[in-house]
């Protein structure tokens, strides 16, 4: 076969958003030779787009806040389906992880007393989100990037990993290609951390960047790891609606956190009907369904959304606290949000489901394979609270880095089967060699339409089944792809493997959505509108590959210990 490069490290981390960077910093700090592999240039990962803030019970603004309340908010927001151990670590460790960013140079917005300022967000009892205007993710990724490049990590940019390489049960390497040259590369390692983010690009309207093609989910699945809770995909209530070119781009929850009001075409503040107590700051699943319902019932805005207005806070305030939103609407939609309302509609934002991991070390069910951040499942249960993903990636990025470094320590590198590698290489080159075949761009667009239509905010057995049939047909078509051009920086070729990942994850989403016959969090079944706490509320879905076929099983949730469950009864 053609020649390829080989690099050898103790730990490799696939994905260089917040979770990957945090994992790499920790792994390196623990003395492991650490590689960080990113699909794009460093600092461009999806974390850069996070806006509203990072949730941590620092209690700088609302002094009553504490980890117990954050833990409870997270579990309730996730409809008690969360991995309680993860939610517990997350609530307890987030404050220190946020302060740490400050020690590394981050400049969060300040309170009058000179501490880190915090803002209100949906489902959080207290003002909890540390932020920098509405560009918190950029601040975080830059801070971690800066810390990272001075931490002795080897960074490999614009490298796509396509296959996890196993020796017996455990992962021993990762194979992929340089985007620039199209040449193959093998990374040998004793531990691998997946930090590849989500899968929003399987949908037509999404707030996610191009990298969100479910690579980590798919590679873990192919390597035999279990995925959990895949039916839960978050539709962020407020994406842009108009013009068509920007449909789906995120409108940060901070707009509502800063007092933004939602109204319908009749001028009614409709959240009064859906959640009179929390109103616009209800959890994302509720607000998304409410907006969707208003539009469905004919009370939508001119372009089929709801109105979101924050102009009453005054132009100066809006420009100071929501500068990106101001520019985004001004430049893309010719709308001045300091003077009038935006139009918003739910947009695919985040996958709660992911690789099943242990909270302690983020180890998956495959030895040597770890996962952190959005690609990991369990932490957020059936619905994630805003701000909890940025804290998740810090807390579990660190834990995964630590876990991977400890696992790798003292192990010698296993041999990698040449035959295996040749098989992967041939599979990847196939679209160049096929004389006939489909255009990957066409199949991608078709998949996006299918997911948008059939596995959306509201679901029924009939439409999910239709979605599954269509995904099956797309899988068949995607078997033979054909592309033009050379192997050098060829986006059409890159899409071929990304498409395969998206198809695997889409199928998992659809199959779990069909199986969960109740409504819970982000999963809303029109044919089963109620939550069934006694039955379904006690079960997680596990997806795994059995002899090449997608297998689905239910597994009882792990009950939390008494001292924690007491927190919830005391509350009543």
């Amino acid at each position, binding site marked *: 076969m053609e020649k390829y490069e080989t690099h050898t490290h103790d730990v490799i981390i696939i994905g260089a958003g917040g979770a990957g960077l945090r994992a790499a910093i920790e792994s390196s700090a623990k003395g492991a030779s650490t590689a960080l592999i990113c699909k794009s240039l460093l600092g461009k990962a*999806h974390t850069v787009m996070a806006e509203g803030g990072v949730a941590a019970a620092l209690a700088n603004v609302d002094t009553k806040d504490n980890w117990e309340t954050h833990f409870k908010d997270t579990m309730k927001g996730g409809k008690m389906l969360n991995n309680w151990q993860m939610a517990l670590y997350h609530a307890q460790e987030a404050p220190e992880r946020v302060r740490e960013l400050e020690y590394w*140079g981050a*400049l969060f917005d300040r309170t009058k007393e000179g501490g880190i300022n915090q803002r209100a967000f949906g489902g959080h009892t207290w003002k909890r989100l540390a932020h*920098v205007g509405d560009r918190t993710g950029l601040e975080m990724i830059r801070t971690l990037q800066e810390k990272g490049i001075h931490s002795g990590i080897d960074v490999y940019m614009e490298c796509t990993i396509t296959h996890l390489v196993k020796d017996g049960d455990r992962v021993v390497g990762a194979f992929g290609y340089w985007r*620039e040259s199209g040449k193959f590369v093998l990374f040998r390692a004793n531990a691998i951390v997946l930090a590849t983010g989500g899968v929003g690009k399987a949908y037509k309207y999404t707030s996610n960047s191009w990298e969100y093609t479910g690579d980590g989910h798919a590679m873990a699945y192919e390597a035999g790891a279990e995925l959990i809770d895949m039916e839960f995909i978050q539709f962020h209530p407020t994406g842009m609606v108009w013009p068509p070119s*920007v449909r789906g781009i995120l409108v940060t929850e901070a707009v509502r956190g800063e007092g933004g009001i939602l109204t319908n075409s009749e001028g009614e503040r409709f959240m009064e009907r859906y959640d009179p107590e929390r109103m616009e700051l209800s959890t994302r699943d509720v607000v998304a369904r409410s907006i969707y319902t208003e539009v469905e019932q004919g009370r939508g805005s001119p372009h089929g959304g709801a109105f979101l207005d924050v102009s009453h806070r005054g132009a100066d305030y809006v420009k100071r606290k929501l500068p990106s939103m101001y520019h985004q609407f001004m430049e893309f939609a010719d709308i001045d949000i300091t003077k009038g309302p935006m139009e918003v509609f739910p947009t695919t934002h985040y996958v709660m489901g992911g690789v099943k991991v242990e909270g302690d070390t983020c180890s998956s069910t495959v030895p040597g394979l770890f996962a952190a951040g959005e690609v990991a499942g369990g932490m957020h249960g059936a619905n994630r609270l805003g701000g909890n993903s940025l804290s998740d990636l810090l807390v579990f990025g660190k834990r995964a880095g630590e876990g991977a470094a400890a696992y790798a320590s003292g192990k010698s590198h296993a041999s990698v089967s040449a035959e295996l590698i040749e098989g992967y290489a041939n599979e990847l080159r196939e679209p160049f060699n096929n004389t006939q075949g489909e255009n990957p761009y066409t199949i991608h667009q078709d998949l996006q339409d299918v997911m948008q239509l059939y596995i959306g905010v509201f679901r029924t057995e009939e439409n999910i089944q239709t979605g599954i049939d269509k995904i099956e047909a797309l899988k068949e078509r995607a078997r033979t792809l054909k592309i*033009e051009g050379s192997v*050098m920086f060829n*986006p*059409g070729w890159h899409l071929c493997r990304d498409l395969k990942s998206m198809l695997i994850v889409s199928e998992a989403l659809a199959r779990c959505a069909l199986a969960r016959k109740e409504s819970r969090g982000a999963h809303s079944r029109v044919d089963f509108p109620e939550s069934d706490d006694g039955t379904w509320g006690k079960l997680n879905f596990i997806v795994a590959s059995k002899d090449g076929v997608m297998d689905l099983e239910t597994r009882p949730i792990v009950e939390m210990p008494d001292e924690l469950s007491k927190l919830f009864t005391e509350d009543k």
Partner: protein
Amino acid sequence: MSVAKLRVFRGDAQGGEEKEYEVPVDEGMVVLDALFYIQANYDGDLAIRWNCKAAKCGSCSTEINGKPKLACKTRMDSFAEGETITVYPIKAFPVIKDLVTDVSWNYEVSKKIPPFTPAEDTEWIMYQEDVERGQEFRKCIECFMCQNVCHILRDHNRKDAFAGPRFMIKIAEREMHPLDVLDRREFAREEAGVGFCNITKCCTEVCPEDIHITDNGIIPLKERVVDKYYDPLSWLLRKIKGK
């Protein structure tokens, strides 16, 4: 729906040529959408970097009708009806393929800048007015368009001597961090070549984040360097301390 004509650079380090494409234009469409249309319908291998398509990541810097722009932020309706739109890679960096250039030099420079360094016993209190100067520079999305238009890099190719505007504000940001204790003035002068900038402000003009690179970053940095090196008292102190 109208149809736009785009002339896009296709080629690599060895050279290339413009290729013309016709793309239907929808309301609110941006140049990046037009490039996607070309990929999906004409040439699947057209290379362009992009990530967020929301002007937040700074990946899709190109030269559109000769001007450095983010392709995701340049609306098709900003051109006259029938106007041909040319799209080229940014000029200050070597072409890899089509619209993708080799910007790795920037990452090498970035690594050389001494990191944020707080005192051992720092009390972590900072006020909003103290962090705002740094926050302005930290808005930078690293699109490298300021590097691209800086004539020291673009026309004179002095990458050996000048770190460029993006890294001037990075040094400035560290220097202005209220809790940083490291002195980077020598670095700014000797390694980063702050003296090369002659304040033409081209960088400020192209910044998609409206960072006042020259006024708020480079000029204050130059002043600090001048204070250190040309202030007679500092000069005397350096002599005595032997630094």
